[in-house]
């Protein structure tokens, strides 16, 4: 049920679980923990709908490559960024959890099998359609891959009635985390502050920080500073290994035989290099989207190609006179970014209205990131050429050497990942494979900040799978040690 901040401040409820952050991970967890019968408090820093004041907390600085303003890439109110996401989902590939030949730091401490049992439940929460199974395109080095597309659930709307009616979950708005008290490896309480300046302390057996792929790092950096380094004793990787999915228009192609890639039947086709090809060409993961042009644009492309390649142009004219249907395609891509220590969230000198330092994001793309997209495109171009089923043109920025990433356009997917990476050891990460802070017995993180690497797939499905896995873990913990 909804709990006004003033009510929360005057009551003395001890919760089983206190979740800070009501976005995809926080709401998925609250709904699931309620079904499991656990007394849960869900705290949202913002309001029930958008407000400039809450959104302003997200302002921050960006250093490095061109990037989207930090307060423009996410939403700070009930439901979080599920209030504006596109609903595109796909699980990470099995090889995304492994150490890639090109970048050994991509290994997760868990495998795809650890998340697979949560797929069906996560798909139901997110209203996903069942996509077609991937399959390899023989001899190409590519797989045809599928996403669940076009049904972006607004979790706030979907679960408002559930949260309001639940006997097990309380949720509170404008409840901003400003302090945390920990003793001997146990978080005892958190301090929340409203926009009106009221404060309250909340006690719980377990705490979950689920504030997103930048805020989890920012808040922990601040809280760890306040605790004189006792919250996270080895904080060498805190805020580090931050990643995005670079997005860009990467070129165009003319397909002489569109059926070879399925573009005779569909307007959009997604391709990804096979794991063998990633290893052979020293690539990170990459998704290429081929979007079919209309007839007019296709004819313009045929004319352009014929000017560059007159001999081929004669052949194209002959084929057209014989009635062959060819299609132009626009190519867009989203690809994996190398996990690098240098890319990080850090604390700025400027503070927000609660006195907490704002985020400064230091983010640059590496030579391997640039190699991944250029070589993936060359690989597809070679396949079209070798099979004589088409010709591909790289976008200007990809054709030039050295490659310089575009400074405008999509830039990235607004997918904030890493910063509090999951690891076997405290020297290499912030949380263990259960998503628990190494030095705290009862504090966990939910969300994409725990990703050690990111594949190319949109992160929300994986975020919810991890959140549901964390619910099962907490459920077991609570049943092992029932309340006295």
């Amino acid at each position: 049920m909804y709990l006004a901040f003033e009510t929360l401040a005057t009551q003395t409820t001890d919760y089983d679980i206190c979740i800070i952050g009501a976005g995809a991970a926080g709401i998925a967890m609250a709904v699931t923990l309620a079904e499991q019968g656990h007394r849960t408090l869900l705290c949202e820093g913002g309001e029930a709908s958008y407000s400039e004041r809450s959104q302003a907390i997200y302002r921050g600085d960006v250093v490095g490559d061109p990037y989207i303003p930090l307060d423009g890439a996410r939403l700070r109110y009930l439901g979080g960024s599920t209030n504006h996401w596109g609903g595109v989902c796909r699980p990470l590939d099995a090889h995304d959890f492994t150490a890639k030949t090109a970048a050994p730091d991509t290994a997760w401490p868990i495998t795809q099998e650890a998340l697979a049992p949560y797929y069906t439940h996560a798909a139901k929460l997110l209203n996903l359609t069942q996509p077609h199974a991937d399959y390899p395109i023989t001899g190409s080095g590519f797989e045809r891959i599928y996403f669940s597309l076009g049904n972006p659930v607004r979790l706030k709307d979907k679960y408002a009635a559930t949260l309001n009616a639940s006997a097990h979950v309380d949720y509170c708005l404008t409840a901003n985390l400003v302090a945390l008290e920990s003793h001997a490896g146990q978080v005892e309480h958190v301090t929340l502050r409203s926009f009106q300046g009221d404060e309250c302390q909340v006690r719980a057996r377990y705490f979950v920080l689920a504030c997103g792929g930048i805020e989890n790092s920012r808040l922990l950096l601040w809280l760890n500073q306040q605790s004189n380094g006792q919250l996270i004793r080895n904080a060498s990787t805190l805020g580090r290994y931050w990643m995005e999915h670079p997005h860009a228009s990467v070129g165009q192609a003319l397909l002489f035989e569109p059926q070879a890639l399925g573009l005779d039947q569909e307007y959009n086709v997604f391709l990804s290099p096979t794991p063998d090809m990633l290893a052979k060409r020293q690539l990170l993961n990459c998704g290429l989207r081929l979007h079919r042009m209309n007839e007019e644009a296709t004819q313009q492309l045929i004319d352009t190609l014929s000017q560059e390649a007159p001999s081929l142009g004669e052949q194209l004219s002959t084929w057209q006179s014989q009635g062959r249907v060819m299609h132009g395609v626009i190519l867009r891509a989203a690809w994996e970014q190398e996990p690098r220590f240098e890319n990080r969230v850090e604390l700025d000198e400027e503070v927000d209205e609660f006195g907490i330092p704002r985020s400064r994001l230091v983010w640059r793309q590496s030579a391997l990131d640039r190699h991944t997209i250029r070589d993936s495109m060359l690989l597809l171009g070679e396949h079209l050429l070798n099979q004589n089923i088409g010709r591909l043109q790289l976008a200007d920025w990809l054709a030039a050497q050295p490659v310089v990433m575009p400074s405008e356009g999509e830039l990235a997917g607004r997918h904030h990942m890493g910063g509090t990476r999951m690891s076997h050891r405290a020297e290499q990460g912030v949380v263990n494979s259960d998503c628990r802070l190494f030095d705290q017995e009862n504090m966990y993180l939910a969300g994409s900040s725990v990703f050690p690497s990111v594949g190319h797939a949109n992160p929300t499905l994986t975020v919810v799978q991890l959140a549901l896995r964390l619910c099962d873990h907490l459920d077991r913990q609570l049943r092992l040690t029932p309340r006295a």
Partner: protein
Amino acid sequence: MSPYFLRHPSIDLTRRGVLKGLFFSTGAVLTLSRWPVAAAQPAPIPAPVLVNGWLLRAEDR
């Protein structure tokens, strides 16, 4: 190294593989005169050239 290296389709170059290929080939009599190596060679794939971003075969131009 340039990414534009030659890539050949997979082909069975063992004596058994080549004999099998010849047996099923309607052009077996013609190719026998070039036995065994010439018959087993795939058609060379010309190296691509990059022209204004287009990945082309030399003969396309």
